[in-house]
């Protein structure tokens, strides 16, 4: 009862159409970023890369970039560490509250980010903490750390418990087991989680909006401009952020592919 | 089961090719109404491909199939009056036993009350308790699941039932029990069963005829005894069990001492002599036989009620002999042994001795 060739072809066409649908807006943004006109309208009369030049030399953009990078960077590292330990507790060790823990971890992922952001703002306020890019890190982590944990857990679930036990049987201490067995085995999952964390933090808006205070990330700036005071830099900066994400993803995939080629036993 | 006028299933020149590989080479087969036909062969011989085409899951590249005179290879699987019992049984995990059995009836719009009646009837036929009607599939044992799968297959009264190695995953005892039950079911329902297996033993216990398949072709199609005693090729002979081969050239075979009667019967003939280990008997003293062999015992194995010996003949060739335990060779390994058999036990295959098997 194989699917007929026609059905398969139709399904593939459908899939391509959906992909096109998903990426169409980005095409518009891309085209807008190379339009010379200040007030955008299609068809584009003149093409120019002037806006890119302006964006890349702009101080505003540079400051935003630094803030976004700082936040994303710390979030990435933190997520990888938290995710590593969290995943072991999630997937591997049989401990008493594991099931409850699993459910607790999932809750922040389902939570509307706007509400979470606002709640955190109130919380910081109550604690007397002034919001800045540092509090943004915390806000991002609330959502991203559980996701990182899940990503590492995928790898941790197929973990062969016998490996750790064998190491201990041969005399390894807890730290040695961790270093020689657990960490290397989970590393691919951890790096994937790190990549996810960076990208999710890099592009996040709702949480940043409420937790950065006076500081501002790239997505925040973009949103403000989109809603009022359109600037032709918006599509440009937008495309730059997309490009960064794309470069990272492709880089990550290439790295993974290269590693698999060089070490066929992974 | 008599050789009725026309076959229920007629397969003609059925061929199936996948890209550069031919799985079936022009298969011809006539299946008799109500027979239990086993198709046996090693993995990769094309049995599953054949069955999938007969059931309708795949299309043939060439050839045709007729069921009671109607062309069915162009009919989609869900419209064919045939049913397959899958290797994995493919029971619906989210439905009860009763719902599984009733499924084909539900598809055909049979009203609920009638469906239930038929399902209960089938439970009885398959010797399952009535209250299994509401039982969940997960709660059934392996053997019970088999019977539910059978009941479901019989529900809409198909013309032919196909079986794709249904017992291969079961343990020995269960398999033995179900083999006999399947044969019994076949007798009671009178339906045509076409049964695929790689186990010869299964085929021999249950079937009326066996079709031996190799590399996309049928080597031999005949009842078990005939294939066993008169295999048409070395492959079939070896497939059916342990066997001894001897080259016969122009009426003479090295290592084989022929009696005058045997010499006469085999005069001028060439090919391969096949002799089953259990048709040999120990020759003591001056006893003689139509064909006799002489050598030393190199190994002995206890096979339940029988002893098996490996012996090396004076020509250096190895031979396998099986005798009843009470006739065991006393001195065991290293003993000198003479064995022999009747002319009727030696079957001549036309194939040359060194032809590729």
């Amino acid at each position, binding site marked *: 009862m194989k699917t007929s060739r026609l059905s398969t072809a139709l399904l593939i066409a459908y899939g391509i159409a959906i992909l096109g649908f998903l990426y169409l807006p980005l095409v518009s943004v891309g085209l807008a970023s190379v339009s010379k006109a200040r007030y955008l309208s299609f068809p584009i009369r003149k093409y120019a890369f002037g806006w890119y030049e302006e964006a890349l030399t702009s101080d505003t953009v540079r400051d935003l970039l630094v803030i976004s990078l700082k936040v994303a960077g710390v979030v990435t590292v933190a997520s990888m560490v938290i995710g590593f330990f969290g995943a072991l507790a999630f997937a591997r060790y049989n401990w008493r509250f594991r099931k409850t823990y699993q459910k607790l971890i999932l809750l922040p992922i389902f939570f509307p980010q706007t509400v979470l952001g606002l709640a955190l703002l109130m919380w910081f306020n109550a604690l007397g903490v002034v919001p800045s890019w540092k509090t943004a890190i915390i806000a991002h982590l609330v959502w991203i750390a559980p996701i990182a944990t899940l990503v590492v857990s995928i790898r941790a679930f197929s973990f062969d418990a016998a490996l750790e036990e064998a190491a201990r049987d041969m005399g390894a201490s807890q730290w040695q087991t961790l270093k020689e067995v657990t960490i290397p085995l989970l590393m691919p999952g951890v790096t994937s989680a790190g990549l996810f964390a960076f*990208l999710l933090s890099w592009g996040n808006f709702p949480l940043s909006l409420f937790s950065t205070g006076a500081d501002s990330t790239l997505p925040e700036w973009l949103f403000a401009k989109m809603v009022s005071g359109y600037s032709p830099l918006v*599509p440009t900066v937008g495309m730059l952020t997309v490009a960064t994400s794309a470069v990272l993803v492709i880089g990550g995939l290439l790295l993974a592919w290269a590693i698999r080629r060089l070490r066929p036993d992974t | 089961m008599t050789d009725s006028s026309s076959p229920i299933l007629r397969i003609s020149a059925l061929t199936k090719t996948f890209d550069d590989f031919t799985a079936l080479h022009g298969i011809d087969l006539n299946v008799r109404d109500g027979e239990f036909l086993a198709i046996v062969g090693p993995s990769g011989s094309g049995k599953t491909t054949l069955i999938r085409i007969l059931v309708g899951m795949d299309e043939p590249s060439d050839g045709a199939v007729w069921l009671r005179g109607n062309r069915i290879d162009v009919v989609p699987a869900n419209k064919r009056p045939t049913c397959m019992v899958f290797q994995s049984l493919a029971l619906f995990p989210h439905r009860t036993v009763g719902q599984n059995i009733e499924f084909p009836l539900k598809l055909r719009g049979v009203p609920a009350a009638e469906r239930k009646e038929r399902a209960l009837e089938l439970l009885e036929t398959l010797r399952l308790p009535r209250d299994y009607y509401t039982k969940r599939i997960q709660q059934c044992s392996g053997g019970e699941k088999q019977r539910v799968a059978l009941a479901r297959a019989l529900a809409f009264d198909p013309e032919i039932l196909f079986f794709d190695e249904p017992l291969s995953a079961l343990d020995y005892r269960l398999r033995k029990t179900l083999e006999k039950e399947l044969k019994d079911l076949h007798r009671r329902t009178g339906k045509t069963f076409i049964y695929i297996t790689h186990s010869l033993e299964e085929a021999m216990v249950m079937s009326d005829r066996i079709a031996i398949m190799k590399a996309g072709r049928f080597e031999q199609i005949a009842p078990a005894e005939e294939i066993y005693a008169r295999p048409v090729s070395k492959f079939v002979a070896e497939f059916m069990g342990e066997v001894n081969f001897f080259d016969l050239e122009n009426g003479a075979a090295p290592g084989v001492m022929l009696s005058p009667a045997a010499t006469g019967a085999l005069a001028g003939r060439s090919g391969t002599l096949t002799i089953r280990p259990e048709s040999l008997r120990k020759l003591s003293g001056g006893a003689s036989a139509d064909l006799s062999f002489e050598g030393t015992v190199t190994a002995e194995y206890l096979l339940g009620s029988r002893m098996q010996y490996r012996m090396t003949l004076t020509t250096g060739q190895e031979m396998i002999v099986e005798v009843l335990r009470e006739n065991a060779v006393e001195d065991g390994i290293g003993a000198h042994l003479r064995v022999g058999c009747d002319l009727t036990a030696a079957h001549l295959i036309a194939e040359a001795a060194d032809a590729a098997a």
Partner: protein
Amino acid sequence: MQRRERKLGLLYAAPLSLFLLLTFLAPILLVAGFSTMPEKVFSLTQMPDFSAYRTVLTQGYWKSVAWSLFMALLATLILLVICWPLAYGMAKVFKRFTLVLTIGVVMTLFVSENIRLFGWVLTLMKGGLIEGYWRYWTGQGFDAPLYNGPIIVFGLVYVYLPFMLFPLAQGISMVPDDARQAAYDLGATRWQILKEIDLPLAMPGIMVGSLLTFVLAAGAMAESKLLGGRAIITIADEVQTAFTYGQNWPLGSALAMVLIAIIGTMAIWAISKADLDAMMGRKS
């Protein structure tokens, strides 16, 4: 080994758990507390009077709740229909194309939602990618289909597509192939197979996908703001307004609590039903 595992598990779970306790549960409790305070108050020291909740009911804020939930429901149903064929293809039909699709779709998640929605504005607006080129080629223009209710649902469908697609594909992949073949062999038509085999057995995936999509869409704000203008105000939007312009923390909190209560109940129910170990293929 057992005792070591138990201790390790607890130890390793501690960082994330404590972190979430402090940064997730605590703020929510704070919000809950604030929701009971008299309106326009900025501290928790007053006597609870639940006046904010009364405002929610009487001042028509419940309309935002209803609209948000309705649009989320609509988006979920639309996504079920749109994603099913694709998910079926990914799970049962495509071979390498599944990977292409997966990567293609996942990559869109890494692009900020705002940029993607903004791209739709650029695409659909008057003078935008579609209308601009259409007018250029045919001389006929048309109004932008923006700034209304339906376009918001469109935006929700667009943004949350991945969240329906992947769980659905996962669910369909768990429908045993041999059961489908057996059903076909027993006489089922394609529709009957869908109804009797596919839908029931893919139900876990359908539930997870639907719930995830619904919950996320109910709390969405950007779609209505960027694409819908002021046509429909979602509840998340109202929450934000109450907190910022409205300077009414108790009201904002009460609205937030309503949203949390509805989403939270559904999320908790879904999570409690899901057997994560089974879903993710635990080995031991």
